[in-house]
């Protein structure tokens, strides 16, 4: 399973990074956020990425989510090398392959739940009718069929996060990328949300989740810990 430059990842590997490096130039001082990350994630894995703040987990998250490009190294997503793609190609990857769930939900405040879920389909170029039908189905799946025309401020935190999950999954992405998804939720709602993640995992969804809470990470099948821009531990755990 060792990957060398010039290799292609095995077919069931969704995410592969090879010597992934990201440096930031902070006013003349170079901050080395990631110092060569090698990680492989197979289809249908549920991985939690942990680490103290400053360990580089957000940077890794942004790179995996194609919101950022690495300074050096390779990143393969679903058999495609994305580390040297252009801006527009990255936008297409974000649209098709990645579903984001953010700590702060990141819903459009002026749009209702249905329109929020519709957004990725708009950028995928789907016609309006089909878009609305798919978005409605996605909301039904997360149990919000009766909340479609509610704006985010008319929904509870848990409901908002479920809208965000519906939006993340509506394009059937290769990976669900969650950044501290329970950070703004109480423990009961967090537990509910983790149940949703578990269910998705059992349905075959690949999930990568960044968190700093051990009990949340405990829901994942594999925990990767970062420290100072490198992987400190990478272990499987019993579900």
């Amino acid at each position, binding site marked *: 399973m060792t990957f060398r430059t010039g290799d292609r990842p095995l077919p069931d590997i969704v995410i592969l990074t090879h010597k992934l490096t990201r440096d930031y130039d902070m006013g003349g001082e170079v901050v080395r956020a990631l110092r060569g990350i090698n990680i492989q994630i197979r289809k249908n894995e549920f991985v939690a990425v942990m680490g103290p703040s400053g360990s580089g987990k957000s940077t890794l998250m*942004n790179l995996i*989510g194609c*919101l*950022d490009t690495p300074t050096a190294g390779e990143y393969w997503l679903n058999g495609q090398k994305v580390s040297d793609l252009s*801006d*527009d190609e990255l*936008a*297409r990857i*974000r*649209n*098709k392959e990645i579903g*984001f769930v*953010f700590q702060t939900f*990141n*819903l*459009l405040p*002026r749009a209702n739940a249905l329109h929020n879920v519709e*957004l*990725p389909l*708009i*950028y*995928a*170029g789907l016609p309006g009718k089909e878009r609305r039908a798919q978005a409605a189905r996605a909301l039904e799946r997360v149990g919000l069929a009766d909340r479609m025309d509610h704006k985010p401020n008319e929904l509870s935190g848990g409901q908002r996060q479920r809208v965000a999950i519906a*939006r993340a999954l509506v*394009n059937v992405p290769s990976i669900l990328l969650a950044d501290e998804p329970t950070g703004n939720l109480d423990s009961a709602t967090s537990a509910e949300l983790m149940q949703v993640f578990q269910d998705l995992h059992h349905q075959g969804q690949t999930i990568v989740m960044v968190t700093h809470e051990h009990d949340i990470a405990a829901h994942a099948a594999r925990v990767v810990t970062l420290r100072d821009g490198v992987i400190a531990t990478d272990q499987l755990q019993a579900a």
Partner: protein
Amino acid sequence: MRVLEAIRLALQTIRAQKLKSGFSAIGVFIGVTFLIGAWSIVNGMNRYMTEKFAGTLVGVNTFHLRRSPNVNFNVQDSVWRAWRRRPRIKFADANAVTHALTVSVVTAWYSEDRGSVAYNGKVAKDITLEGATERYLDIMNLKIADGRAFTPQESRAGTTVVVLGHDLAQKLFPDVNPIGRTVRIHSIPYRVIGVVERQGNLLGISLDKFVVAPALSPIQREVNPPGVVDALIVKAGSEPEMREAMDQTEAIMRSRRHLRPRQDDNFAMETSEGVLDFWKKLSRILYVVGPGLVGVALVVGGIVIMNIMLMAVAERTREIGIRKSLGARRRDILRQFLAEATALAIVGASLGIVTGVMLSWLLKVASPLPASVSPFSILLGVVVGGGVGVVAGVYPASRASRLDPIAALRQE
């Protein structure tokens, strides 16, 4: 994201922020209102001057032989005094010209002044008294509504008969038929033989308060010294014939006045073209100043829209981040903000068109100006308004599209 989608999104945003959108559209609104309004006014004035003003005052293919031009603007005092020193046109001049012209023309002479007309104790003051020969009504296109015009015999004999203008007839004879009645003009009785059709008004002055009596009748005493006329009117069948008649008239008059070749004419021949000269000068100024003012309003409108859009980009940084994270490409974001700016401008332009058309309509109803909106000005309003939106939107939209998604998402 398709263009249609961008437009729909833009309209949604505008609807959601009515007040802000209203203010940002105001510049374009004013510009386009002015464009439509000013255009229709200038158009109306143009039509008014060419059709009505020049036509009423002089007539088509017609010239007036006078001592000095009747319609003039900005004449210097010295010129004016020189005009006053010129000899007047005499009956004999008018007759000589009429008989010597080889071009087939219709001629009449007339003199006019203001005075009062009385009937049965009622007095109408400030009435235009005209002493004219029989073809005058014909040439001036004054159609008889009731009764008849005077005959060449009556004209030559100087019979005391009179034709009334519509308003005057209404005033003196509110409920009786004026035909056959006797009016008094400065105590001399005249028999009313006809009433002229209603003429309306010119620049707000009624054209229906007049009487026309034969030039050789006693009315001559009220309008001019004996043997003197204000003008000989010569109407030709076509423009070249009129030119020819003018050349002949000039030659005849110069010889009658014994003018040497170096001497200037001491009489004037006025055509509708001459009357329109002044208008042409004025409209040239309007055609330069008008677009200038419209341009200023539109530039201001564009700057306002650009500022509003820059603010919108700053306010909605997070939204832009979210959209990018969901797969919006640069061009999608660019299109979204460009469409918003353009939609704003077009909304402003549309309101401007509506207001401009209403303004022009109001003017048409409330004033004598036949103001009319030209379809081209509407098209221009939409195109220019939309263009302002695009130009003003490009910079803010390109700034929005270049935002880094990570930084944009982090924005509170």
